[in-house]
């Protein structure tokens, strides 16, 4: 008997992982091509709608609307930041690319939320679901983001739509985790009180658990936004347009000007959307006891109207 095989086992025994992966993808593409094509349709509709909308709207209106949105949702400082950052993006000549990136970003975040939020809720309800989902999330988060590109190209092709899909896939895990965490850490007696007053599980989730978990869930959305932007350069390798492509072309042609423009654009967008999405997670207490509509431009307007009513 040859004992050397025991000392060096992997020379003779191996799992053909590479072949398996190959076969699996081939099997998927040959059997489910239509399914993957069909999946692209709604994504394309959403993306086109957003991109056309953003490109057709005058730049000034976008800047002002976004600034007011930031003021209403967060505060005046964020509104000023938004105004300055968006103006800068225009000034450095990255506007069009930024609007494409923004369309990809918003589509990806919407899709990630559409799947991540319900999955996170399911994970918090059922131990079994969490046991199954958890290793998948670990896998999704540890696999290098480049690695996603290969199966995406094979299944969906290249271009903006596959770019949205790969970005959404990459950005979903933290939302699932934080939704699950947020729901599991709601104060137990607040949940018990809902039960004690006869709430059904759905009612309890909707009017007690989700609102109380909102800050944590919104931290998840914030992570999704940040990861989507971080993905933009990588996604441009499968021919996604936007700021990421400027960076990629800049690197490959050693064109510092383009790389700097694209890079600055991404950083500015990231700052704006980081602050704005953080505003989603603010509670009444964070706003000094004011409700969402009692602050910002709407709050001022209401104050003015109320003042006039008193005068007349």
């Amino acid at each position, binding site marked *: 008997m040859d004992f050397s095989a025991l000392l060096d086992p992997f020379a003779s025994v191996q799992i053909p992982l590479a072949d398996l992966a190959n076969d699996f993808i081939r099997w998927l593409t040959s059997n489910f091509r239509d399914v993957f094509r069909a999946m692209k349709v709604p994504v394309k509709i959403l993306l086109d709608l957003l991109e056309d909308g953003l490109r057709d709207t005058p730049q000034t209106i976008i800047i002002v609307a976004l600034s007011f949105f930031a003021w209403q949702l967060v505060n005046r400082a964020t509104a000023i930041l938004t105004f300055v950052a968006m103006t800068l993006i225009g000034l450095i000549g990255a506007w069009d690319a930024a609007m494409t990136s923004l369309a990809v970003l918003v589509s990806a975040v919407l899709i990630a939320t559409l799947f991540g939020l319900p999955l996170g809720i399911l994970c918090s309800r059922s131990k079994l679901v969490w046991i199954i989902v958890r290793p998948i999330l670990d896998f999704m988060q540890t696999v290098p983001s480049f690695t996603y590109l290969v199966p995406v190209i094979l299944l969906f092709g290249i271009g903006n739509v596959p770019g949205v899909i790969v970005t959404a896939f990459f950005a979903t895990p933290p939302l699932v985790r934080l939704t699950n965490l947020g729901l599991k850490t709601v*104060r137990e*007696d*607040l949940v*018990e*009180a*809902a*039960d*004690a*007053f*006869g*709430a*059904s599980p759905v*009612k309890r989730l909707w*009017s*007690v658990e989700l*609102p*109380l978990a909102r800050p944590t869930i919104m931290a998840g959305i914030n992570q999704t936004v940040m990861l989507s932007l971080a993905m933009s350069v990588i996604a441009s390798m499968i021919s996604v347009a936007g700021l990421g492509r400027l960076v990629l072309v800049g690197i490959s042609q050693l064109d510092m000007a383009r790389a700097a423009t694209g890079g600055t654009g991404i950083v500015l967008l990231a700052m704006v959307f980081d602050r704005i999405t953080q505003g989603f997670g603010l*509670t*009444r*207490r964070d706003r000094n*006891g004011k409700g969402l509509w009692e602050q910002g431009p709407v709050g001022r307007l209401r104050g003015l109207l109320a003042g006039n009513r008193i005068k007349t």
Partner: protein
Amino acid sequence: MANEHPVNCCNLWKIFGARAEQALEAAKSGEVDKDEAFKRFGCVIGVADASFSVAEGEVFCIMGLSGSGKSTIIRHVNRLIEPTAGLIHVEGRDVMGLNPKELRELRARKIGMVFQHMALWPHKTISENVAFGLEVQKTPKETRRAAADDALERVSLGGWGDRYPDELSGGMQQRVGLARALAADPDILLMDEPFSALDPLIRKDLQDEFLKLSREMKKTTLFITHDLDEAMKMGNRIAIMKDGRIVQTGTPENIVLRPATEYVSRFVSSISTLKYISAVEIMTQGGTAPGAREFGPSTPLPALLKAFSEGAEELTIKDGDRCLGRIGSAEILETVKSDLARV
């Protein structure tokens, strides 16, 4: 049963742990006690063979130290916790036999609950908090609002409906908790250490207010506390718990004057008996005091003292026409002396 009490629990057991059934068998046969059950089965006995009933309009206190199972027991009444064994009847219906929908209806309409740490929802206004039980039952918005305002008025918080819980002090928050329990006009109140998280003065205020409300509204109340003084003050009857078992059930007088076990007597040793002692217990039997004022045998000591302070030197204790005995200052002094020695 036609005249069954509104809340009725019979031989209730709750054992936490994977091997609860085995532990239950062993505990029922008396083989294992609380510690032994944990060692042998890894199970914690929360409630052991507890039976009690709460009469209509009665305030029934369950008193015990932390870990004695009192908070576990109260959660069986609205089935927030499922028993391992035993019967629970609420208003004549077997709570264990209800389906989820019926159970939710029972909780929303029949049973109001107040929690130790208020458990108000911070994202809802005060009146949304108070009206939640009605919202769950899909009551129209205006009716809800009116009921919430009514309930808030009862706990003297009228006009606070549009505020949020964190704008209120602890005492006010617990009033809201009480209003929430009252809003759906349930017949039964479950109070889980409602006042223990409050400052002593505010606690006293709320106790007095609750007593007043309770007398007006005549809600059947199960009241949990770890404070014997509170139990004596609030309860028509008191059950004392230790290690998941009810060791004695009785009126405050009974508990103080006739503690059933060593444990109970240690507990009540700090409570003065003077308030609860009646004439028949301290009189000298036989003999009358000619011309003295006459009192019945169950007259409490404070009433006797009042007679003395009004100038009487001796009292005659009479049951109808029958003379039982007499009380002079010697008997009174002896009583006070032994009470002081007891503490």
